[in-house]
């Protein structure tokens, strides 16, 4: 039975509750009325409950095949498997906005559930979070209503886009949305800190876990998006600088800058304006990403749905950006911090350089993404800005960042003399040099790849050196073995060593990227029994097998891969006809390993069984996924750190009551 009928009433109820939440919490914050602020928080929690009901209503309608709902008809079908029926929730614009709102209200309710901080701080955070929720509920009630009812109910639906029918799609979009949405919590508390003038580091401490959680989800979501592209799209790569990929990458860059620069505020009380600006930029970019994805402003293979929500988003984005900047500007005096560096050769300088590079990278990606729109608006001519532009601009910045990742931990806080510095960098430098000389001597001729190898080796060695130094202390002090000492160091300072584990993961990812310089790609049209050469492999198209499921007709090519006359792999790429959409879709076959991936895709199959085959040898790609897994381990260590307790709130200042109230 479908609960689809409950959806819209639940959204209407949630809308009114959110409006009440804004009103009560604003009153509570302005007048420091605890009861009003608490009423606002409860209204927000109740609103979250109703949004949850609406989400369940749509899920129920999808599983019950309630084709009276336009959304269910457009994005699901009876033949769709249960997993992909669930994925239909975020497969279209209306559903994905509902999913976004479910997450937003849930996170808001969770973040505000514990009484802590001052009344006005919580009140303002509730105002911001319920205000954002109100905007998304407006979208769901008017231009992006997922519960629109059809006059003529079809017997079956149109199904989900075959490209979205991939296991990665079950996790990738939810993680990206989780990341985007969870940044609303530090954003809201940052704005609340501005509104209340409580501009010490407490709001950072209160939201640190939310920031880490959001960043972790976004990071893993981005990598899973790359994995989805790699295994599903069939062009042999994982990142195409597609505007939608860029939309997720831009807030990741600013958030990463923020995660690093808050350390300076916590340790030295500096960068207060900078940190607030970064969290504002991160959240605005996260919403901007949704605007790009869902407004249809950019043509992209990811923009599966186009809707009339652009004109709603633009004023919202403008209000957030201008409002946020105005709030920061109005508190500049209170945000003044005593900036002093003891030495240019210090960890603080490294963090500053790190922030400059992250911001420059974010700007370059933003500029490249919006440049075609701006040019079209100004000159009427649409120009393309594709991967070669982004690679040229981003790769040098990215490589510099990898170098800094290794350099940072080697430099002491406050100051370091040059002699000690050279002593620290000596071993990593030797490792970097070896990483250039050995491949060059072996015949590697890609300058970019050699630089990347050198920086990866430098940074990897520098970080391992930090683990060794940390473990050595526990080893000598507590008479432990190396493994126990390493574990002790990791658990005693999770923030520091968890961060290093994340950095090691990033190094492995960059190593995987560098491997793409050696990619070999070949295409051929093969009859059964014919062979082609790619790299060291001979691929023989042995036979074609046909299959049939309720969803698709399957055409599977059996391809043997041999090297040195010996069969080393058998690959089975498919070219399938999805019945509902009458659309062909290729399924890639990959033999993966630490040295290289052999990647085969069939792009066409003739009636006589001959196949068009694209084959790639992708060196080191495996390390990208291993690096991401290591990053996830590091993130878990970071998130397992006990949350810092915010400093107690100062006694409330007497409220100046207006004359009328005093009477």
């Amino acid at each position, binding site marked *: 039975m479908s609960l689809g009928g409950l959806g819209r009433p639940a959204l209407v109820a949630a809308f009114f509750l959110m409006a009440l939440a804004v009103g009560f919490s604003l009153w509570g914050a302005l007048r420091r009325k605890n009861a009003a602020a608490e009423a606002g928080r409860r209204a927000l929690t109740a609103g979250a409950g109703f949004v949850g009901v609406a989400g369940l209503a749509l899920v129920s309608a999808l599983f019950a095949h309630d084709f009276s709902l336009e959304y269910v008809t457009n994005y699901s079908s009876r033949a769709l498997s249960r997993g992909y029926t669930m994925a239909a929730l975020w497969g279209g614009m209306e559903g994905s906005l509902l999913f976004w709102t479910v997450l937003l209200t849930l996170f808001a309710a969770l973040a505000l559930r514990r009484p802590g901080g001052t009344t006005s701080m919580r009140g303002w955070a509730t105002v911001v979070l319920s205000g954002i929720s109100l905007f998304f509920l407006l979208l769901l009630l008017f231009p992006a209503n997922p519960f629109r009812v059809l006059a003529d109910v079809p017997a079956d639906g149109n199904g989900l886009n075959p490209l979205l029918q991939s296991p990665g799609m079950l996790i990738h979009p939810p993680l990206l949305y989780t990341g985007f949405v969870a940044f609303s919590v530090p954003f809201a508390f940052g704005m609340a800190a501005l509104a209340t003038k409580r501009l010490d580091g407490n709001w950072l401490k209160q939201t640190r876990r939310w920031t880490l959680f959001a960043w972790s989800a976004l990071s893993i979501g981005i990598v899973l998006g790359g994995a989805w592209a790699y295994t599903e*799209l069939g062009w042999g790569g994982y990142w195409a600088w597609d505007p939608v990929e860029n939309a997720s990458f831009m807030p990741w860059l600013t958030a990463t800058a923020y995660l690093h620069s808050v350390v300076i505020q916590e340790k030295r009380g500096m960068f207060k304006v900078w940190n607030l600006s970064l969290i504002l930029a991160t959240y605005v970019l996260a919403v901007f990403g949704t605007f790009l994805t869902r407004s249809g402003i950019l043509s992209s293979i990811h923009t599966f749905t186009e809707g009339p929500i652009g004109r709603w988003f633009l004023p919202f984005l403008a209000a957030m950006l201008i409002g946020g900047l105005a709030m920061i500007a109005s508190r500049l005096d209170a945000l003044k911090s005593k900036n002093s560096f003891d030495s240019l050769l210090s960890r603080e300088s490294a963090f500053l350089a790190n922030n400059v590079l992250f911001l420059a990278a974010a700007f370059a990606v933003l500029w*490249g993404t919006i440049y075609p729109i701006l040019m079209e608006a100004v000159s009427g001519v649409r120009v393309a800005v594709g991967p070669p*532009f982004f690679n040229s601009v981003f790769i040098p910045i990215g490589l510099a960042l990898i170098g800094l990742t290794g350099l940072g931990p080697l430099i002491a806080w406050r100051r370091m003399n040059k002699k000690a510095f050279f002593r620290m960098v000596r071993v990593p430098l030797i490792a970097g*040099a070896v990483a250039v000389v050995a491949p060059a001597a072996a015949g590697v*001729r890609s300058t970019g790849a050699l630089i990347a190898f050198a920086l990866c080796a430098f940074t990897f060695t520098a970080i391992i050196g930090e683990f060794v130094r940390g473990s050595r202390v526990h080893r000598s002090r507590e008479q432990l073995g190396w493994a126990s000492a390493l574990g002790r160091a990791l658990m*005693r300072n999770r923030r520091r060593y968890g961060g290093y584990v994340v950095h090691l993961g990033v190094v492995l990812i960059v190593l995987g990227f560098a491997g793409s310089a050696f990619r070999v790609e070949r295409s051929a049209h093969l009859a059964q029994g014919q062979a082609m050469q790619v790299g060291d492999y001979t691929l023989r198209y042995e036979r074609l097998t046909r299959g049939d499921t309720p969803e698709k007709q399957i055409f599977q090519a059996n391809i043997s891969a041999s090297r040195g006359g010996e069969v080393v792999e058998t690959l089975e790429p498919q070219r399938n006809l999805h019945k509902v959409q009458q659309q062909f879709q290729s399924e890639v076959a990959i033999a993966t390993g630490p040295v290289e991936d052999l990647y085969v895709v069939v792009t066409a199959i003739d009636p006589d069984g001959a196949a068009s085959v694209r084959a790639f040898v992708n060196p080191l790609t495996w390390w990208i996924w291993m690096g991401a897994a290591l990053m996830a381990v590091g993130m878990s260590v970071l998130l397992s750190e006990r949350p810092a307790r915010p400093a107690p709130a100062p006694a409330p200042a007497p409220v100046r009551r207006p004359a009328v109230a005093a009477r």
Partner: protein
Amino acid sequence: MKHLSVALFLMLAIAAPAIAAPEDMANDIAAEIMSPYCPGVTLHDCPSAEADQLRARITGWAEAGWSKARIMAQLESEFGSTIRATPTPEGGGLTAWALPLLAVLLGSLLAALLARRWTEASDGERQLGATATAADAVTMTAEDRRRLDAELGVLRSGG
């Protein structure tokens, strides 16, 4: 250290790419042009059958000995200049390239200036502090220094 840097630099400089096979050149070109058949996607990444055919034509031109410039010119004459995946660095297209570069340069310059100013401010304070505390200065024995290093090591490792 200096010799090592020079040797590495030379090694990187002479690491010139080998001459590309025609198919590799065709793949490079496909990655540098937008697909006329898939909006917003390069020809290399476009999965359509028409894209397959165009890639095969480019490979054919490369195998016939056409230079990269000639193939690009041929593609532009067929599909227009918007087929290029990057703005040309002239006229309005120059801003596409110049702005990110300017952002890096100005950002770095600003950061360097700020870091210098903050360091000078700190130096000034330290000089004042040094005058005030010179009388309290203590000499550290080798044993004290060893103990201090050990304690600092424990602190650094989080113990």
